[in-house]
């Protein structure tokens, strides 16, 4: 599904990622953990194609294609979704309208027929039902006046509607209370299927209690320094990132 090889990326001339290697198979959930400033969000942004980040070396292959050669919207159209750490507000545009524009842009790119308003509402209803949420977000402007927690939930709602093959959740669990973490995790679990993969980028172990990741990676100073199963996350949580720094320093 996804193969990242020796990825180097910089922002404003400063290299943040110093050679990341990562392979994610279809159906897997990977967690990428690491302290603030380790490059977690940079990795997510580079995958999605944020223009501020420059890839200086390495490659990202997504479903056999060179992801880095694509524009951000082309990546989205090919099935890559990123849940933003700081979702952006778009005034005056309802979520429903925004989602229809997005779904239709993606369908058009794939040569599929676009939905009209009525059909799309049916599609929305179906998705909402699948994750067990009500439609209270749909007629509100995109993220406008949303609390931090609502914005994060809205990202998950968009994910459910856009049905990506690879979802990258960038610190979706930050700033959420424990109930919201559960709600988000449940929605992600429902989204799981053999042909979809998820990368959960997080600073905290808490959400992994509900997600059952297949692999946990630790990103430190722009490199993946350790990979393991869920126990690694628990260990990290107990011992803290300082422990990791010491371990890495010791080699």
């Amino acid at each position: 599904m996804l193969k990242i090889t020796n990825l180097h990326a910089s922002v404003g001339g400063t290299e943040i990622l110093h050679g990341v290697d990562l392979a994610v198979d279809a159906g897997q959930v990977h967690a990428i953990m690491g302290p603030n400033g380790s490059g977690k969000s940079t990795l997510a942004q580079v995958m999605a194609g944020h223009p501020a980040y420059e890839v200086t070396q390495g490659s990202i292959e997504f479903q056999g294609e060179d992801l880095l050669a694509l524009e951000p919207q082309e990546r989205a159209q090919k099935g890559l979704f990123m849940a933003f750490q700081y979702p952006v507000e778009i005034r005056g545009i309802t979520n429903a309208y925004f989602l229809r524009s997005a779904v239709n842009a993606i369908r058009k790119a794939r040569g599929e027929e676009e939905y009209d308003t009525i059909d799309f509402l049916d599609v929305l209803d179906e998705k909402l039902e699948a994750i067990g949420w009500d439609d209270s977000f749909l007629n509100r402007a995109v993220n406008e006046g949303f609390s931090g927690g609502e914005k994060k939930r809205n990202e998950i709602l968009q994910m459910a509607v856009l049905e990506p093959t690879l979802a990258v959740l960038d610190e979706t669990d930050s700033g959420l209370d424990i109930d919201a973490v559960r709600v988000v995790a449940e929605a992600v679990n429902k989204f799981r299927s053999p042909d979809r993969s998820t990368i959960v980028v997080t600073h905290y172990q808490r959400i992994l209690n509900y997600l059952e990741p297949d692999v946990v990676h630790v990103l430190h100073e722009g490199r993946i320094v350790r990979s393991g199963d869920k126990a690694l996350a628990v260990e990290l949580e107990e011992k803290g990132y300082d422990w990791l720094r010491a371990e890495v320093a010791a080699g």
Partner: protein
Amino acid sequence: MTTPIEQQVNKAYQYGWETDIESDKAPVGLNEDIIRLISDKKSEPEWLLEWRLKAYRHWLTLEEPDWPNVKYGPIDYQAIHYYAAPKQQKRLDSLDDVDPKLLETFDKLGIPLSEQKRLTGVAVDAVFDSVSVATTFKATLKKAGVIFLPFSEAVQEYPDLVRQYLGTVVPHTDNYFAALNSAVFTDGSFVFIPKGVRCPMELSTYFRINAASTGQFERTLIVAEDGAYVSYLEGCSAPMRDENQLHAAVVELVALDDAQIKYATVQNWYPGDPETGVGGIYNFVTKRGACRGRNSKISWTQVETGSAITWKYPGCILQGDNSIGEFYSVALTNNFQQADTGTKMIHIGKNTRSTIVSKGISAGKGQNTYRGLVKIMKGAENARNYSQCDSMLIGDQCGAHTFPYIDVRNSSAVMEHEASTSKVGEDQIFYCQQRGLSAEDAVSMVVNGFCKQVFKELPMEFAVEAQNLLAINLEGSVG
């Protein structure tokens, strides 16, 4: 590197071509003889000439105002032709007699005038430089009792009506440019909706400046008698020229008991060269509505996308009890454009209400100022005002400024205000792209969402036009 926003914001001005038509111009400069000449060309009655001369003499005593937050070089009032008309003798009753070049011009502007092509449901008065060239649907309107005429014709046909209302909302003493306009105005539209009549179609005037070194000084007067309703829209454009041309219009609205006037403007004068800022229209306009009657309502909607400098404050004098004033505005300044615009709401009657929604968009080196006054007079019991003033910045070389003035002299007033400034940046565009949308669609979505409250006040056909105009004028500015 130009960003997607920048590319979006910087498409070229599409109405910058010139019609090659011979024109009959007054000699350059301004003096009493020129005013007599204009009045004579229009075969005006003596009282109107006297009215003009009085305004001119007053104008001579005034100084050009310097308080707006805009910068421009001195205007040489003696270097302007105050009258220019396409050489085509008299106005004729049939469109067949209109110079085909003129019809073609308006066709090209999207304002077809000929019988077969004209817009359904919209009556258009087409003004070319100083004269009206055609007015559509005259007969239909006449049947309904509605008078919709070029100003100069109205002076001939309904002199008493014109005389009764002219200058009663914006007196010639109001300000420098109103005085100038009163002295030299050439054409414009006159609308009269008699008691109890709901105007059966949208009325629209399209102003085109064509001739070089001319100014445009039109005058519009709309009167809605008791219980009448009218929705009116003006549009405008001009060729690209290296000189700055002056547009100093005056619009007066009068609403009597239970009457309602909706006045919309889609302003797209030539904004000047996007690279150098050379040329473009100085749009110095005085617009005011008087809600004279009880329960009357005047609503201004403006989409200001053109002009080098825009300087206008469409206002409402809420004299009648329970009267309502509204102001919805989108002002876009891109490249070297400057705008100082807003509104005045003067509450005099009891239970008067006003709503102000202003959306300023600045891109390139554009400077956008909102300036508004809400005044609650002593006798205005239970007056209410809601003001919302939002600014959007695109790029980091533009500016947004807000000057709300509030003067409350009655303690029963309820005042609400909201203000915000936000920046459209890469992040917003990237967010939309990440959901599969193109950069162009992302920009237009963000900007249209921002302006939605104003666009929904426009008649349907024009809302679409306004959105397109905004997209065109914003082209290339997003990043």
